[in-house]
């Protein structure tokens, strides 16, 4: 604790400083690699594992099963429809849910037969339905429209509040990195994409921008009168602001991630597939990446976007000048004091 308080103090005074802006090339490279991987992974895996909510299909429900072994159900389906990829999940205790792509009536009957022998239940305990998507194209379309409108309005809001569009661009860049990597990790986990996961993504989206605004507000404060200051260059001020808010970033991330982590642990560990697991995985990854993206992507990108502005180039030159003057002065001052 004492160590952490001291850590905060040193970050505040600038005694301890991490090169978030200075080493931006490394961070951007890491972010780009992360985004590239996040695009390659789902493509290599043949797209996202979309839930029945999005695609519809046939669904079998087997109650009071003797074994919750998923492979039993998979085999029962592949025996009938070779080459199909059934998705078998254990739902709350002794019920198995088997979802497949659309089947013919004959296939449905044979799979039903196979399931009832494989799981050792009576014929009445296997039911089948053909269901369409509950999350249809209309829901997706409206959600996407909403998303685009929100992102545009948020960009305008930030540009107005911070009085520079470059902060909006940087914040959106950080948000995009967060979204891509979160989606990539989700694809890697092979969890089904369900409406809960989408809700999680939307929360992450809003969290990511939120987090960036908090840090950018400190940057705005630190660089408000950069023109009349010769203490630090613009990039250094940005870096100091990020360092000064680092304790806040860590604390906020911890407080946000602790409940999510608890849900993820209980959801994935004890309950298996379901709302809690899907939602909390998206959130867990998203909050971590979102916090990091603000620090490593959004803030350095803002400094980078502005560093070539003529005023700031002049200011940087003045800082240089002052520094060399001071160095000379202290060199000449030494003998006088002694």
């Amino acid at each position, binding site marked *: *604790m004492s160590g*952490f*308080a001291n850590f905060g103090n040193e970050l*505040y*005074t600038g*005694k301890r400083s991490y090169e978030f802006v200075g080493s931006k090339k490394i961070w951007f490279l890491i972010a780009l690699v992360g985004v590239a991987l996040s695009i390659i992974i789902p493509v290599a895996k043949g797209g996202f594992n979309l839930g029945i909510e999005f695609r519809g299909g046939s669904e079998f429900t087997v109650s009071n099963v003797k074994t919750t072994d998923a492979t039993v159900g998979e085999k029962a389906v592949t025996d009938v429809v070779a080459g199909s990829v059934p998705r078998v999940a254990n739902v*709350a205790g002794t019920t198995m849910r088997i979802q497949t792509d659309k089947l013919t009536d004959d296939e449905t009957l044979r799979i039903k037969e196979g399931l009832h022998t494989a799981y050792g239940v009576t014929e009445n305990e296997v039911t089948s339905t*053909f*269901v*369409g*998507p*509950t999350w249809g*194209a*209309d*829901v997706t379309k*409206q*959600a996407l429209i*909403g998303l685009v409108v*929100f992102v545009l309005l*948020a960009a305008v*809001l930030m540009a107005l509040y911070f009085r520079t569009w470059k902060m909006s661009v940087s914040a959106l860049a950080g948000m995009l990195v967060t979204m891509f990597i979160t989606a990539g990790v989700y694809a890697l986990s092979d969890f089904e994409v369900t409406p*809960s996961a*989408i809700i999680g993504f*939307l*929360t992450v989206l*809003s969290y990511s*921008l*939120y987090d960036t*605004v*908090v840090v950018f*507000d*400190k940057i705005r*404060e*630190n660089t408000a*009168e*950069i023109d009349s200051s*010769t*203490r630090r260059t613009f990039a250094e001020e940005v870096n100091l602001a990020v360092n000064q808010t680092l304790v*806040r970033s860590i*604390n906020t991330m911890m*407080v*946000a*991630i602790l*409940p*999510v982590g608890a*849900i993820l*642990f209980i*959801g994935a560990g004890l*309950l298996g597939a*379901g*709302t*809690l697991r899907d*939602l*909390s995985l998206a959130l867990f990854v998203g*909050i971590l990446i979102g916090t990091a993206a603000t620090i490593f992507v959004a803030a350095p990108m803002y400094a980078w976007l502005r560093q070539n502005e003529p005023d700031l180039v002049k200011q940087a030159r003045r800082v240089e000048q002052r520094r060399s*003057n001071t160095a000379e*002065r202290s060199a000449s*001052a030494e003998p*006088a*004091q002694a």
Partner: protein
Amino acid sequence: MARTGPKKPGLRVLVWLGVIIAALTAVLAGGTVAGQASWSPKLALDLEGGTQMILAPKVEGGSDINEEQLNQAVAIIRQRVDGSGVAEAEISTQSGRNVVVSLPGTPSTATRDLIQASADMNFRPVLLNGAGAAVPEESRAPEDQLPKPTAAPANSSDINWITPEIYREFEALDCDNASAEKAERSDPTKPLVTCEPATDTSPAIKYILGPVEVKGSNIVTSSFQLQQGAQGAVTNDWAVNIQFNEEGTAKFKEVTERLNQFYVAAGGESGNDPKAQFAIVLDDQVISAPRSLAVITDGRPQITGGFTEQTAKALSDQLRFGALPISFEIQSEQQISATLGGEQLRMGLLAGLIGLLLVVVYSLFQYRALGFVTIASLVVAGVLTYLAIAILGWTENYRLSLAGVAGIIVAIGQTADSFIVYFERIRDELREGRGLVSAVENGWKRAKRTVLASKAVNLLAALVLYFVAVGNVRGFAFTLGLTAIADLIVVFMFTHPTLQLLARTRFFGEGHRFSGLDPKRLGAVPLYRGAGRVRTPEDRPANVRAKNAGAAAEAERRMTIAERRLAEKQEQLAGSSKTAAKENK
């Protein structure tokens, strides 16, 4: 906060917060006593189960429904369900023929009616109207006086449509005792004899209507508003606005041109020619038959006269939701159990509890006694959120799904962030050597901006998604907005006033080492440390320099006289030029 007295700033705000919570509790208690609300929040389909309705869509003309029409049917039902609150219904298709609607709890009659409400809407010109009751046998027109068509009808308003059979049907029709629904839809190319059912304000009327002129599918949207008077001032009369698409605009222009001639010919306002009326027909029943007072060329007619807010809204909803040539028939309606076991909710709540506990431990570890302020603030936020959910469950049919529960647990993080931003600002101020009271005030001034700007992002997301998106996303947006507002209320009305009060206690004010605001631990260096002892440039906290130029200049001014003299002396000793000294400022 400037309003509060000098002695106990913040106390008044805290009292106001108490008043708000008490008022919300009273509202909820009132609703519960009246039997409409309940103390426990309403649960959504996945946690509580509900009612499943299987609807068979019927297309005009009796042909089979195709995929596009089925999707259209799903969209229209989703729109209707969303229009009735934020219940997060589940809507899907079954066997490529039916629409399955699952609603949480037991849907009210109004909701059920809204879902199955037919959507066969169109506009027909009125040929003849009369009082709703059937004409008594003895006073019916004798055989030879029946209207006889003299020529083929030239247009939909031509009275040559009225054949003796149709006139007899009109006479016999009894709108006061409406008969059971007709099994078959009327033919849009033939005239129709039908009723406008009686309402609270007007008796039943019966009509002979011409063939369909404009179809309901030509309506883009509809709204209702208070009518504007001639001077543009808002009157007390409600009006319903319709907006047609291109095809509808052209047709409606043609119709109103013809109907308006009847209106003018009959003597305008005082005239009484039924042929000046056009009837809005839903499900073969007239829902309204306004007169055509003007030629509508822009496809945006306004219907006025005798509306109350409710009837205007009802008509507007019917026009908007009825604008598709599909009607629905309920095939089965049955109870379904929760899709998620109670175990999922219990585990979710357990997880939330564990998460909260971890947050408490972390806060106390990080902020010591100040952590209790965080915890108390979270409790207040929790109480506010709970009250809001319970009340909105009553008024807006807001229901908590498992995703919603998880969303609220997750919101803990964002709520706590407001406090963290604030506390860190106070610590920054302390590091600069301020006393706690002024550190709290200055820290708040700066934290307030950040909190407002960042919460604006969340609120924007909530608003946009709520109004644009449908289904689950809409429920999510509602939860997001709710928690963001609760958060703002708490940080403004609880956390800050509480800190204002605590800053004046000895424990916090003197920076006890467990207060979390101990200046020594924060590496603060007082601005003035007694006579003759001044800070040297080295131990002046570097953060003062770290500030922007304005703050630095202020810090410069805050140097004690002794400090300034010392600095000047050093500068002279160093033999530095005047320009360098200036630059240092």
